């Protein structure tokens, strides 16, 4: 008798939440995949834009009346003396041919007037005035032109932004679906316990009291589903990372990058992924509480 623990006001069996746990866990798993994709896309954008912004290329075309080696040297000298240029490197003919290999194949390009390239590293903090530099190159070096990669950069950024938006849309859809599922489950639980709820009302229970008896179960469901989903997500990334080929730049490398990157990046990735159970718990708790209060208000 001493230490008697009162039984649960709402019977545990009526309106089981097992199927909700499974569905929510799948939602959380999909959310993890979408978040993983989002992190990788954002990181790739930073790398691309950073890399492209730090480098420009000078192209010197072979003209009939010009000595291309002399023009290259002239361009290199001009570049090195230009404010904002941190370094230059003239690519030899073989390096140029290698760049064309994907399109022209492994053949002798001696007969072709292949343009020569100068790789220019710029000071990211104080970049050169590209307009003046282009004008100077064109006027002083025969066949020279400046390529700042701006078009590529813009297109890559646009594509990455579209992929990011797609990932956000997927996350939003997952949240909306989770809310709808929790509303449905809450209604089911309340309907299954309607006789109990009626008695509770008649003995003077407040709506908030009844709601607290039920939504504690939704809190547990959200938390469990979130933890299961995030664990499955991490296992998926781990399997992809361990089983895929190394250095191929595909999904396997991306997964490895997500899990085993530098500590400051890894902490950020894991923190974002671990937000999934927190958000799932909040969605489950808040949605069930609001639904319960609204439904109980209709019961006299």
């Amino acid at each position, binding site marked *: 008798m001493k230490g008697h623990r009162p039984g649960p006001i709402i019977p545990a069996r009526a309106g089981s939440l097992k199927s909700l746990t499974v569905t929510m866990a799948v939602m959380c798993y999909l959310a993890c995949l979408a978040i993983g994709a989002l992190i990788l896309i954002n990181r790739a954008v930073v790398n691309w834009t950073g890399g492209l912004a730090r480098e420009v290329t000078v192209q010197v075309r072979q003209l009939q009346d010009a000595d291309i080696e002399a023009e290259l040297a002239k361009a290199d000298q001009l570049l090195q003396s230009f404010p904002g240029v941190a370094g230059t490197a003239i690519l030899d003919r073989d390096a140029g041919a290698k760049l064309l290999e994907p399109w022209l194949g492994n053949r002798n390009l001696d007969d072709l007037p292949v343009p020569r390239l100068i790789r220019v590293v710029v000071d990211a903090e104080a970049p050169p005035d590209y307009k003046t530099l282009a004008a100077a190159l064109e006027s002083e070096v025969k066949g020279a032109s400046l390529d700042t990669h701006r078009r590529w950069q813009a297109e890559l950024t646009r594509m990455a932004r579209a992929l990011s938006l797609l990932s956000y849309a997927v996350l939003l859809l997952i949240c909306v679906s989770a809310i709808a599922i929790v509303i449905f489950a809450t209604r089911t639980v309340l309907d299954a316990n309607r006789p109990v709820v009626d008695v509770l*009302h*008649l003995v003077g229970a407040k709506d908030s009291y009844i709601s607290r008896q039920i939504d504690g179960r939704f809190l547990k469901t959200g938390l469990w589903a979130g933890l299961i989903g995030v664990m499955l997500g991490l296992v998926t990334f781990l399997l992809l990372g361990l089983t895929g080929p190394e250095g191929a730049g595909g999904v396997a490398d991306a997964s490895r990058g997500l899990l085993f990157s530098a500590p400051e990046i890894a902490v950020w990735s894991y923190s974002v992924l671990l937000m999934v159970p927190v958000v799932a718990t909040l969605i489950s708790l808040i949605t069930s509480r609001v639904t319960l209060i609204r439904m109980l208000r209709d019961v006299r």
Partner: protein
Amino acid sequence: MAATHRSNRLVRLDNVGLRYGHGPEILKNVSFRMEAGGFRFLTGPSGAGKTSLLRLLFLALKPTRGMIRLFGEDVAAFDRARLPLLRRRIGVVFQEFRLLDHLTTYDNVALPLRVAGQRESRYRADVMDLLSWVGLADQAWAYPPVLSGGEKQRAAIARAVIGKPELLLADEPTGNVDPALARRLLHLFVELNRLGTTVLIATHDHKLVQQAKAPVLHLERGELRVR
């Protein structure tokens, strides 16, 4: 004097009518008053509207017309948020008991105190005393599905009175018990009434009515007569 008189009037119904949906009127122009500390029986044949009248009084239904005042206030003006506090002042014994099958007899009886936020250690002795009084001490840890009809009836009565309500409404409270226990339960109601609880009992049991010698409200075809 007039103010005192008004505050003593616990239940007042004026021309109350009730119909379910578009069906016929179940209660027609029902008017009566009960002073605080009153004791009355509500009699009438099956289907006369006794249960409906009790449901109006414990605020499970709203009247189609007319006015109901409880504890000196018009129930139509009650804010829904105040209903739980009001219901804690009313004890109800349901004809079909309405015990919660997943809770022990003890937890069922303690339910009104528990939902009111009282600690188990505070109400434990009161609940056990009351269970002993209604002869259910041995069944305190049994679940309702294994109780007999009479035991369920007593548990339902115990749940209705545990919170020492100001108004006790009972729907056929002796319908499932033997005459000896019925007399004992009547004694419990009379005792509660003596301690200040206003009691209204709906019953078919003429012997119970004769024993208590209390005024009778008789319902027939939805119309009320005071005897």
